[in-house]
């Protein structure tokens, strides 16, 4: 290779912005992706994921902001000068070249002598070695996607950008490729930036997940942190289901916990979870951003009468119970009309039926607080 393949450092985005005429596709992203990490970029359709990747690849010019790879500012360099490869959302395989020539395209540009052998190895990795002589259009969508993957990985770039690389695969192959991708990433130590719609995929594969929304980053962190302690209601609802109870205010009894007030109920909340500057002297000021207490459905328990009293208790009526095999999902209506979702494992514990009056409880360490204008 013309340049060393070892990662030279983290990828840093500073105020990265892209406008299309008046439309702001990417609105000032600040991000540092450590070298050799598996980074997932998660977000709804149209939030600017592809645009961000294209700027990192050098295919789209940022309207503002800088991109650093290690110590080097690569903002002004051209795509072909960056040791960055992309698995395109649309595959973008060359229709006039065989599968092997597609995979070998980058290595031949880099004047790698044994491009053929390395390309075959990459094709073996994606289980397509027997298709090397065929043209892309003779392959199924999932096969084409794997060729695109092989074509990018084979170059061993410093950063590999994967734009929904597993979108066209069936579930089984998808799981296999997820494991394979993770293995490759750990073996070769390339920085992976993996764009996906699939929150489960993001959380199982990535060291770090960033949730993107309407051109900006909502939250960046480890999967478990994002799931257990989402910073915004958006992140909470994007990563799985959650019950959000609107709060009216806090009071401070002192100690590890504070009391949150919701519809006349005093709920115990960990002090450490409160957003900074949250007033603890009763109700919120007029026009202040709304504050919610969030509890994941699987963290809610249906309390049996003989159970030790829980710190948090909310009474309600079961309106629906759906059995899903490993678990049962209940809808429990609160006196103020809100329905909470409760997921209980089918482990022989108490089962409720629609119409039953139940009491819900949860561990105060398992809830979270989000504050924002919803």
């Amino acid at each position, binding site marked *: 290779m013309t340049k060393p393949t070892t990662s030279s450092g983290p990828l840093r985005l500073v105020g990265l912005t892209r406008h299309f005429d008046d439309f702001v596709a990417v609105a000032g992203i600040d991000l540092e992706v450590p070298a050799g990490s598996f980074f997932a970029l998660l977000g709804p359709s149209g939030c600017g994921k592809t645009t961000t990747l*294209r700027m990192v*690849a*050098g*295919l789209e010019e940022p309207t503002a902001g800088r991109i650093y790879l290690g110590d080097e500012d690569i903002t002004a360099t*051209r*795509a*072909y000068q960056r040791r*960055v*490869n*992309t698995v*395109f959302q*649309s595959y*973008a*395989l*060359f*229709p*006039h070249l065989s599968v092997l020539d597609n995979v070998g*395209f*980058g290595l031949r*540009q*880099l004047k790698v002598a044994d491009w053929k052998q390395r390309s075959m190895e990459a094709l073996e990795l994606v289980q397509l070695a027997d298709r090397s002589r065929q043209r892309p*259009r003779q392959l199924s969508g999932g096969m084409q996607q794997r060729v695109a993957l092989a*074509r*990018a990985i084979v*170059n061993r770039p410093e950063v590999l950008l994967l734009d929904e690389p597993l979108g066209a695969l069936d579930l089984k192959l998808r799981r296999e490729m997820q494991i394979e991708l993770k293995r490759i990433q750990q073996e070769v130590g390339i920085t992976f930036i993996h764009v996906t719609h699939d929150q489960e995929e993001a959380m199982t594969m990535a060291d770090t997940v960033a949730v993107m929304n309407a051109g900006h980053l909502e939250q960046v962190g480890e999967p478990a942190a994002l799931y257990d302690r989402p910073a915004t209601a958006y992140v909470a609802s994007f990563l799985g289901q959650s019950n959000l109870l609107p709060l009216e205010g806090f009071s401070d009894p002192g100690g590890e916990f504070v009391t949150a007030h919701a519809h006349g109920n005093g709920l115990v909340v960990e002090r450490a979870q409160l957003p900074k500057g949250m007033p603890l002297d009763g109700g919120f000021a007029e026009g202040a951003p709304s504050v919610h207490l969030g509890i994941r459905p699987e963290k809610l328990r249906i309390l049996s009468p003989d159970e030790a009293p829980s710190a948090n208790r909310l009474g309600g009526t079961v309106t629906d119970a759906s059995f899903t095999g490993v678990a049962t999902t209940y809808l429990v209506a609160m006196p103020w009309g809100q329905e909470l979702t409760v997921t209980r494992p089918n482990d022989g514990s108490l089962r409720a039926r629609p119409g039953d009056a139940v009491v819900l409880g949860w561990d105060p360490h398992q809830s979270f607080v989000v504050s924002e204008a919803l």
Partner: protein
Amino acid sequence: MAFAHPIGGVRPVRSSRRRGYFVPVLLLTPAMLWLTVFFVVPTISLASQSLQTGDIDNGYTLTWNFQTYADALARYWSHFLRSFGYAATATVGTLLLGYPLAWFIAHRSGKYKNALLVLVVAPFFTNFLIRTLAWQIILTDTGPVTGFFRATGLTSVLQAVGLTNNDTLLFSPFAVVSGLVYNFLPFMVLPLYASLERLDTRLLDAAGDLYANGWHTFWRVIWPLSLPGVVSGTLLTFIPAAGDYINSKLLGNTQTVMIGQVIDAQFLRVLDYPTAAALSFILMITIIILVGVYVRIAGTEELV
């Protein structure tokens, strides 16, 4: 296939088979009749004419006189060579001018695309002869084009490579080739446009991403994907240009006579029909062979 599964019911297979042949045959009939009347019959009569002896006053008889071919070739081989040389040069010229133009129209013209396409074919609204005559004015000795070529020293360059004889442009090989390039440019641009327009520009992103700079992207992605357009464009230019006689007549001199001009003269002025017919036949066969070799080399059947 119909007999492979005798139990599967021969009837429906048959009826679909009959319908499968009838409609295409019906649709092809007018074209076949047309080709028979206006191509096969004239070609046979031309072939027979070329093998006849006699003269215009006493009539011709078919004597299988192949000597006409030998004589025609011996006398006019240089005209053939010149024609193919000019046609090839003009084809390269139209390709060099037409390729960037077609790319621009296909991918860079935005809302002006249709207007530009109309402009490409606009010369066809004027008569071929008039358009070519206009080049006499364009290349005239006192005109700005000649003035520019003289000022920049390009006239001496042209003279050095034998495209002109002195420091004028008109009535020279250069003028003939220029006329050919001008007249056949649309035949090059339109097929090129058609295949470049189809090209998925995301492939260019992919090439850039895979370390190909602009030049390599062109040679490894754009050019091979545009080959069908290049092949049809060059054929549509080369074939008529090789047989053209207007440009050499109006813009050339006695040293630039092309084979089309010779055939024209043999048919209409010398009235030596067998020689004219033989020359036409040689031209046709040569073009068919050249095209066959060319298409084989370009390997169009392997393309997308």
